[in-house]
């Protein structure tokens, strides 16, 4: 009954607004707000207003599991709320999704712009993904593809570039380890020598002042390529600088990183980044079509806020919100209906703010499984090719 | 004789507890004045206030006519007042000679300092034996000697001694009182707080008897020593 007669519905974002992810989350919120504003604050016949939730706390300075639990309850408790855009961290999603799923008036829809852990939607660890959906209904969707896809695409690309021996590093986070695991597995399968030990390679500690000793060790193994599976924010700049310092430039020993390194002007500005290969699970900002909705949205964003978004994830936030608005507009305005409509979302490439059509498979994963391979040249990401994962 | 130190209507409180309640007294140049009184009478509190470790609640302290109440401790020392405090308060992790050195912290006259150094060691030969021992490991009495010696190193005009004979062996108690007289002869004025009232009255010119934060009696030391009330209460007679 919560939507009875109500024409104003609440849509929310749930992101870490404090600590290390703050900038990224802020620009995401900006993009989402802009999208809603451009839609005139409407989704079909409903008025929509945006509410921002913060899943981080001051004491911890990063996403906080208890805060996620609290937000989950708050989403459900907020009588007019019908959908959540988020979260940024897969761990947080694992706490929120089951609660939204069991919402007595729901389930409530959640669309993420950044969760890449496969287990949220498909079999991965024990009990996954079923344990996140106690009611058996699927209320969770994401507009980015999962870690496993891009790791294997990267391995294949590396082989095609003549790489024989590769050393894998990961940022010790869920995302980085997932990509590293997929890369390592695929690399071994296709006959590359993986110099690092273990299924996910070696973890780097983002709190270390520098990585020269680490690369000195790696140098002794004389790899052809370093695969850095992780997020640039986790001291990736230092890592790349020290890689070049010890192992030489990215022609001598190749460097490759997943989309956790894309869309960072800071990274591209580094002289040491030159020649590095990047992969992206979708399109990096620089790859957005130079015309159409995506280009326009980016231009509008810059005009509205006078700065660039921190990364592609921010624009993907707007894309996720597009999905939500689309679902609401086709729904009867109740939670129980909105989530159902999301499964049938189809946003065409011309309308999508990320320049690619958006639709979901039965798990809630995006059908968009293109992995773009790029190279850093002259301070910009330059596309090399697109690998489509089967 | 000119008045060196003048305390007027001094009150000092620890939070709500008023430990010194409007006492007045004065010390003339070249005198030995003693404050006696039972435990908790406020003697040490008075000395701590003169030295600037506590700020008075009300009242004034004049030193050579200049107001020093409320001055910071180090400024008071600069004016020429040093104290050998109750409980010794030597620097435990420094050696004996470093402690003595600090006694002369504000002085710059190297040769004079060296002379004074010798002088105090002459007075307390035990300290000379132990120049490199960490002060904190010395025996109670040895620490007491050090505290007095250290205060003397400041070569003050007014020396405040808070129970200098506490914990000293009888021979040394004698010695300390002899020393007090000697110091005075060299031109230092002394304000002495003692439990050993008999000995204190013996060397002092004048005395004030403190009780629960107020001056109860005052007068000539020898007169007080023969006063019945005083004898009964403080001299164990």
């Amino acid at each position, binding site marked *: 009954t919560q939507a009875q007669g109500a024409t104003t519905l609440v849509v929310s974002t749930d992101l870490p607004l404090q*600590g*290390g992810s*703050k*900038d*990224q989350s802020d620009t995401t919120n900006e993009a989402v707000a802009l999208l809603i504003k451009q839609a005139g604050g409407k989704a079909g016949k409903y008025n929509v207003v945006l509410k921002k939730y913060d899943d981080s706390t001051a004491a911890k300075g990063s996403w906080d599991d208890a805060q996620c639990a609290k937000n989950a309850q708050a989403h459900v408790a907020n009588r007019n709320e019908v959908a959540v855009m988020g979260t940024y961290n897969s761990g947080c999603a694992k706490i929120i999704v089951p609660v939204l799923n069991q919402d007595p008036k729901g389930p409530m829809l959640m669309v993420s712009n950044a969760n890449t852990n496969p287990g949220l939607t498909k079999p991965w660890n024990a009990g996954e993904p079923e344990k996140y959906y106690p009611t058996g209904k699927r209320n969770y969707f994401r507009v980015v593809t999962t870690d496993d896809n891009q790791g294997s695409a990267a391995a294949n690309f590396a082989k095609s570039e003549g790489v024989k021996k590769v050393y894998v590093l990961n940022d*010790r986070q869920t995302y980085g380890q997932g990509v590293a695991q997929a890369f390592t597995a695929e690399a071994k399968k296709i006959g590359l020598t993986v110099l690092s030990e273990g299924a996910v390679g*070696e*973890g*780097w*500690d983002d*709190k*270390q*002042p*520098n*990585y*020269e*000793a*680490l690369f*000195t*060790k790696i140098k*002794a193994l004389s790899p052809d390529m370093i695969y850095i599976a992780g997020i*640039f*924010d986790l*001291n*990736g*700049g*230092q890592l790349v*600088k020290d890689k070049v*310092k010890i192992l030489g430039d990215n022609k001598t020993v190749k460097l490759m990183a997943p989309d956790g390194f894309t869309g960072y002007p*800071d990274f591209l*500005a580094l002289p040491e980044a030159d020649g590095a290969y990047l992969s992206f699970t979708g399109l990096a900002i620089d790859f957005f079509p130079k015309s159409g909705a995506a280009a326009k949205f980016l231009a509008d964003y810059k005009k509205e806020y006078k700065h660039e978004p*921190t990364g592609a994830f921010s624009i993907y936030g707007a894309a996720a919100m597009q999905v939500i608005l689309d679902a609401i507009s086709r729904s009867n305005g109740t939670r129980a209906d909105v989530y159902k409509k999301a499964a049938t979302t189809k946003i065409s490439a011309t309308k999508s703010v990320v320049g690619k059509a958006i639709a979901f498979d039965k798990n809630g994963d995006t059908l968009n499984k293109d992995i773009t391979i790029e190279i850093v040249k002259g301070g910009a990401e330059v596309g090399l090719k697109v690998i489509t994962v089967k | 004789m000119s008045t060196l130190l003048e305390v007027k209507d001094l009150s000092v409180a620890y939070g709500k507890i008023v430990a010194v309640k409007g006492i007045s007294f004065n010390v003339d140049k070249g005198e030995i004045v003693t404050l006696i009184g039972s435990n908790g009478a406020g003697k040490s509190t008075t000395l701590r206030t003169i*030295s*600037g*470790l506590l700020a008075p609640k009300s009242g004034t302290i004049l030193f050579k006519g200049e107001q020093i109440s409320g001055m*910071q*401790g*180090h400024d008071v*020392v*600069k004016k020429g007042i*040093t104290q050998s*405090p109750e409980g010794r*308060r*030597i*620097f*435990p*992790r*420094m050696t004996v000679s*470093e402690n003595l*050195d*600090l*006694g002369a*912290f*504000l002085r710059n006259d190297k040769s004079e300092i060296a002379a004074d150094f010798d002088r105090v060691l002459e007075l307390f030969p035990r300290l000379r034996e132990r120049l490199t021992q960490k002060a*904190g*490991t*010395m025996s109670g009495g040895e620490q007491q000697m050090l505290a007095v010696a*250290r*205060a003397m190193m*400041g070569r003050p005009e007014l020396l405040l001694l808070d129970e200098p004979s506490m914990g000293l062996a009888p021979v040394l108690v004698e010695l300390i009182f002899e020393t007090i007289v000697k110091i005075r002869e060299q031109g230092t004025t002394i304000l002495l707080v003692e439990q050993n009232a008999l000995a204190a009255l013996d060397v002092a010119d004048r005395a004030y008897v403190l009780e629960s934060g107020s001056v109860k009696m005052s007068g000539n030391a020898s007169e007080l020593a023969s006063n019945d009330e005083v004898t009964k209460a403080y001299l164990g007679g």
Partner: protein
Amino acid sequence: MSQAAVVEKAAVRQYKGTPGQIRRRRIELTAGVVLASLAMVWIVVNIINSPAQFAQVFILGFRNGLLYALIALGYTLVYGIIELINFAHGDLFMLGALFASYFITVWFGQENSNLAGWLTFLAALIAAMAFCGGLNILIERLAYRRLRRAPKIAPLITAVGVSFILQFIGIKWNGSTPRNWPKVLPQSEFTVLGVNIAWNTVILLLIAVPLLLLLSWVVTKTRQGKAMRATAQDQDAARLMGIDVNRTISFTFAIGGALAGAAGLLYQQTTGTTNYNLGFQLGLIAFTSAVLGGIGNLNGAVLGAVLIGIIQGLNDGLPIALGQKWSQTVVFTILILIMVFKPAGLLGKSTTEKV
């Protein structure tokens, strides 16, 4: 007392402790020797296995250790004087690094290693030291001074509060993600016996070592140093000696801060990266170094810091080691072992209380 007895007494054995203590010490010694020899075996195996690599990572670790040392000294100085574990110190260092970055790159626009860059670097050294020293004085004045007589834990919590505020400044100034800066120190290296040594390591050494020497001269030889040591042991007694306790404490915070400023600049110039939470991690390591060496002891802080730097370097960079992700665990395990065998830190002296 007979003559014989006196002679006999002259031969009294040096005090060794009770049988219980001796037994315990023997167990500890054995354990210590076993652990130390395991460590030696590990080191020797690695040296034989890859000598050049060993030397290389040793030097890299040593350089990080020097940076830790500059921060650790600030901890130790402040602890030494008012027994406060100043949690905000690491964050002060972070602000120092940020200040230096802005000074060199934004305000003076230097991006390359040339004469102008060099001069700016020297100016930045002085400016960063002044900036952090001044800031530290201000912090002491506003946040800690009123708590002089409060139980130790009160200023400790205040320090946490200050740390939050400094991080707030950091996040506003730097942004929430690591920022990369150009360096004006030369990035080239020279090779000695197959080991690469960066020029900036040499520069670091040339700045850090004189600073350390200067500091130890100040503390052991000057009047100020004397005042510091006296204040550390008994503030009231120090006042009675004519020492201006407040000024002495301010001075201590000033030099602690100045060292953090220097460390900030040197850090920024060797790594080229700043982050708002930089101070947290390095502060933790520096604090650990200070305690490892014996808190309050200047030489101890330097020794502890260099040791931790080297251990981290070896652990990160040797083929037969646990690897970087266990770096923190290795450091703290070693710390705990040393504390067990040497409870007052490497150079600290355990003082027994006299009753």
